[in-house]
């Protein structure tokens, strides 16, 4: 395998469906962490409820729209249920509660008694009957350049939807953070007491941010399983949240386009590592390569924090302002 094909393959991932849904979930997390200063370590929990929403709809023979509604409704409920008791407290509590809640959700979905609804450890298959690909107007075939940078029509269809939603969510966040509403979020991130002293009900704003960002995450989760055609409980683990944090910080926390840039760069780098490890350097099995690439990603993140803590799009001046 040549360097060129490794780069082409990495680029394929970086603009493909994988980066798209990471970007979408990261837009929500960026609203939490980047703009409101909420340490949500359970974003994966929101993705999970979005995924199971459409999964359960498929299983019960409901329409795809019911599935989205279920996922989004569950995300709103989850946001309120976690937010109302914890957002009154200091930031650390939210981190603990969210990481625990996401794990609980995954374990409950995975548990035997939940089988009739969530399919237990088997998950739910057959999501194709929801008809996500049915309106696909892109003729089947291979689109792209060369042998590596290619997409089939189903991939393009899914990419079109999710990248479209990424742009939509980004523009929504952009409009919000440039409004007086967004100014209150920033003030809460900087100093809650100051915002309170100026008459802002910080709990309400934090709750709105939390629910909105979580809902964006749930939509990302729904599309992941529509693309895969199946829901599996093993996918929704805590490291996914950490990967999303990497994306947000890499792109620049608290920047409008940061999650998109972060997701593209994250997947490009990860796949270049992958390609090099698997094909050029030495003979390693896939699981070993997977572990090594995550280790390298960790080193990369450390270097980023040392040399460019504001991320790719962040402003150094703003970062330094925060340090004082």
């Amino acid at each position, binding site marked *: 395998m040549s360097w060129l094909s490794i780069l082409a393959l990495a680029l394929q991932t970086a603009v493909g469906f994988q980066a798209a849904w990471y970007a979408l979930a990261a837009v929500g997390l960026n609203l939490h962490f980047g703009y409101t200063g909420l340490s949500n370590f359970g974003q994966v929990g929101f993705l999970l409820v979005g995924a199971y929403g459409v999964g359960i709809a498929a299983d019960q023979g409901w329409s795809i729209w019911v599935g989205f509604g279920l996922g989004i409704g569950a995300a709103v409920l989850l946001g309120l249920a976690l937010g109302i008791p914890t957002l009154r407290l200091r930031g650390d509590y939210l981190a603990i509660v969210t990481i625990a809640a996401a794990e609980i959700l995954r374990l409950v979905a995975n548990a035997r008694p939940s089988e009739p609804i969530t399919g237990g450890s088997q998950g739910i298959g057959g999501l194709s009957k929801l008809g996500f690909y049915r309106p696909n107007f892109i003729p089947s075939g291979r689109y792209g350049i060369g042998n590596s940078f290619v997409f089939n029509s189903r991939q393009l269809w899914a990419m079109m939807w999710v990248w479209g939603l990424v742009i939509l969510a980004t523009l929504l966040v952009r409009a*919000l953070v440039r*409004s*007086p509403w967004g100014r209150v979020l920033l*003030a809460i991130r900087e100093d809650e007491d100051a915002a*309170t*002293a100026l*008459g802002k009900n910080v709990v309400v704003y934090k709750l*709105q941010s939390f629910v909105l960002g979580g809902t964006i995450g749930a939509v990302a989760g729904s599309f992941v399983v529509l693309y895969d055609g199946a829901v599996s409980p093993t996918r929704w683990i805590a490291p996914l949240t950490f990967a999303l944090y990497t994306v947000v910080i890499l792109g620049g926390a608290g920047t409008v386009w940061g999650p998109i840039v972060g997701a593209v760069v994250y997947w490009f780098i990860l796949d270049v590592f992958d390609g090099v490890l698997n094909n050029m350097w030495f003979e390693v099995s896939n699981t070993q390569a997977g572990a090594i690439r995550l280790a390298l990603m960790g080193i990369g993140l450390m270097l980023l924090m040392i040399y460019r803590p504001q991320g790719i799009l962040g402003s150094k001046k*703003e970062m330094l*302002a925060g340090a004082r």
Partner: protein
Amino acid sequence: MQDDPVLSEVPAEVGVAKPDPILVVDGVTRRYGGLVAVDVDHLEIQRGVITSLIGPNGAGKTTFFNLLCGFDKADGGIWTFEGDKANGVKPHELARRGMVRTFQLTKTLGRMTVLDNMLLAGSAQSGEHLLKALVKPLWKAQEQANIERANDLLARFKLDHLANEYAAGLSGGQRKLLEMSRALMAEPTLVMLDEPMAGVNPALTQSLLGHVTALRDEGMSVLFVEHDMDVIMTISDWVVCMAEGRVIAEGRPADIAGNPAVIEAYLGIDHGGATKGVIK
């Protein structure tokens, strides 16, 4: 010292009634375990004057202050602001009703510009509603009016040239000024200042004093916590002295300066009688 006709007839006694109180406090207590940090029987804060709250370290001034504006929960007692119940009210609601505070350690919002710090304080902004925020025409005019008002205030506090800088870049003194101007942006009726002169150089102290008196002259009521006796004697219309959680004296600055209870609280009990201290 301000020669204030409103309070000139009021006797200098603890718990004395004022002609037109904006804040009336009754039986407020706050305990930390066995320690009684605040235990104030009755206190009235007159409208339209500068009242300072003094006392030695650990007297409970800041705790009392935090209780009044809702940042700390009292164990008991009631107080009214503008005649309406204020105990048990959330701090942001009190702020909306016109009781706006500043902090001892300035809380400027570092990663926001000076102008955004000001705009945040604008009251009743329709653009702060999640859905209305998405429709700019709904709040654009109000925002524009707020920007003009913020710029006027910044000019008054000589911060206008810094409007687009991050607040974190400001010096300590400029932050004090920003916090005070931000409090004014919220259109308060009672401004609560927690040690506004702490850690400020003498030149800036003079400037801050000028701003505080200007607030009163514009009709606002000011309550501030302060250590510096010179400051208090210069600008206060009324002084309330606390020690060990209780109000031990109140009166015009001249009444307080010679009050033996105040001298004792500050300097300890005078055993010998050789020292004749007068606090200026």
